[in-house]
């Protein structure tokens, strides 16, 4: 079972203050911590679990800047066997990333491709399913369980309201992985040191025969802060004072 996992390095913004660059095209990223996209982390772990069960090899691929090598090292430490970084084009949208990945993957033997459902940054949720269509293979999205038997996968998709559906998909196939599909495993220092020894290749866009950029389907004009809408009444004072106010509110609203 040869598995390819597509990953991305993203800034962690959940608890960070965000600022917008002067040109209004992006947020400032100098002060942010970057890491492997959360969904991709589950995808890599799932690929390694499948490899452990059925044998084969796991290859992690990213399209991204030089710094992306750090998340590839993380994938290798998590149990991937090889990694490949593809140079990032100057401008891109989700479809262009899918096309670049398709170009590279077409020359690789694979049975299964895993991606995260979406990324934490711009969250198009589009690359994985587009890639499947470009490669002409079936797909399932928002997958939270995979079992493989006789060249077919039985996968569970997460729907709304606690409902799930069971599908049977013929391999080779692509699945986009939902968080919670597996239990993340602690990555030891030894594993990180071992990862340094594993194969990490880099390839430029020109080497792929990508000379001129095609026009994008989606162009980012600018980013902005969402307009301040209704805002909560913020309780102020010492913790004791705050808790007193809070208790009164709870008493009143409890009825």
């Amino acid at each position: 079972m040869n598995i390819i996992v597509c990953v991305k390095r993203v800034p962690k913004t959940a608890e960070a203050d965000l600022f917008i660059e002067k040109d209004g095209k992006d947020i400032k990223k100098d002060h942010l911590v970057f890491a492997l996209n959360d969904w991709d982390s589950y995808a890599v772990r799932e690929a390694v679990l499948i490899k452990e069960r059925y044998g084969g090899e796991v290859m992690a691929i990213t399209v991204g800047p030089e710094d992306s090598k750090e998340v590839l090292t993380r994938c290798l430490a998590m149990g991937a066997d090889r990694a490949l970084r593809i140079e990032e084009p100057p401008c891109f949208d989700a479809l262009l990333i899918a096309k670049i990945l398709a170009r590279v993957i077409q020359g690789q033997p694979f049975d299964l491709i895993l991606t995260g459902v979406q990324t934490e940054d711009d969250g198009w949720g589009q690359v994985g399913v587009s890639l499947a269509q470009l490669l002409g293979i079936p797909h399932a999205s928002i997958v939270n369980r995979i079992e493989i038997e006789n060249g077919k996968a039985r996968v569970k998709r997460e729907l709304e309201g606690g409902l799930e559906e069971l599908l049977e998909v013929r391999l080779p196939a692509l699945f986009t992985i939902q968080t919670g599909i597996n239990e993340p495993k602690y990555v030891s220092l030894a594993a990180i040191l071992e990862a340094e020894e594993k194969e990490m290749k880099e390839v430029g866009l020109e080497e792929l025969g990508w000379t001129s950029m095609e026009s994008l389907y989606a162009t980012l004009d600018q980013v902005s802060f969402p307009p301040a809408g209704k805002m909560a009444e913020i309780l102020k004072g010492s913790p004791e004072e705050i808790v007193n106010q809070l208790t009164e509110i709870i008493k009143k609203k409890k009825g």
Partner: protein
Amino acid sequence: MTEIFVLVEHRQGKIREVTYELLGWGERWIGQQEGRLTALLLGYGVKELAEELSMRAPRVLVVEDERLKDFNSIYYQRVLSSLLSRYQPLLLLMGHTAYGMELAPSLSVELDLPLATDCIDLSFEGRQLKALRSIYGGKINAHVTLKESKTYMITLRPGIFPPKMPEEKKGTIVIEPSPIQETTERKRFLEYIEAPLTGEDISQAEILVSVGQGIGGPEHLPMFEELAKSLGGMISCSRPVVDRNWLPKERQVGISGKTVKPKIYIAVGISGAFQHVTAIKGSDTIIAINKDPRAPIFGVADYGIVDDFQNVIPLLKEKVKGMK
């Protein structure tokens, strides 16, 4: 004439609410222009659903085929590809849901049409489509222009637009032949799986103490359990807490979990992703406790406390002991 197509979502014999939100958006956008709004209903044995839809859509286009009984994106893509090529509407609207996320990207690649996913607003400048998207967990808006095209594809975020209400005047129902020829084994729908309910049902709670990954770890859960008990309520949580196995799935509030409407919803360490916020909108009073003053949860809460929960919850727990 401007034509907007809306893909109808239905599951287990019921039309999903997002369908009416899409129709609501479509109707408002067409407004006074010369245009037509069409609901696309793909399914099998869906006569009643078509009738129901005709109360809310001026035109319902129905394609029936045994293979469309349950949602399988391969067959849906086959039908939509044929309908879009034939009618060339200005816009195909879908929900950013388990339907739209499975179907929209592959259809857009097949037909070479521009697609913007998870949009929270749309506008046209001439024939050029501009989309507004909410990114970085709701902290930033992105303004996007799509490449000029005869037809655009959009998935809209559910829970944003008011749904279209039923009208007296019924729309027309048009039956289209199914373009599906071959049966595929590449992807097969097998069955639905309902989540088993083992404990208490949080959707019935009058008070919910709800925790997110901001509480740091499962070691703090007993404190929240105790608080919930003192208040006569239950403990619930956001998705990351379930992903980390701190609490079981049945405790999850959100689009993929439960929709709740308690008298009081206390959100602790929950940032307020839209998947969560959509599912708590029916609460009478929302109280949010979060360290980050910019957390989107404060945009939906009635009362907010910007502080570490460890400074507040232990005190509150003592204060409300025996309150219920």
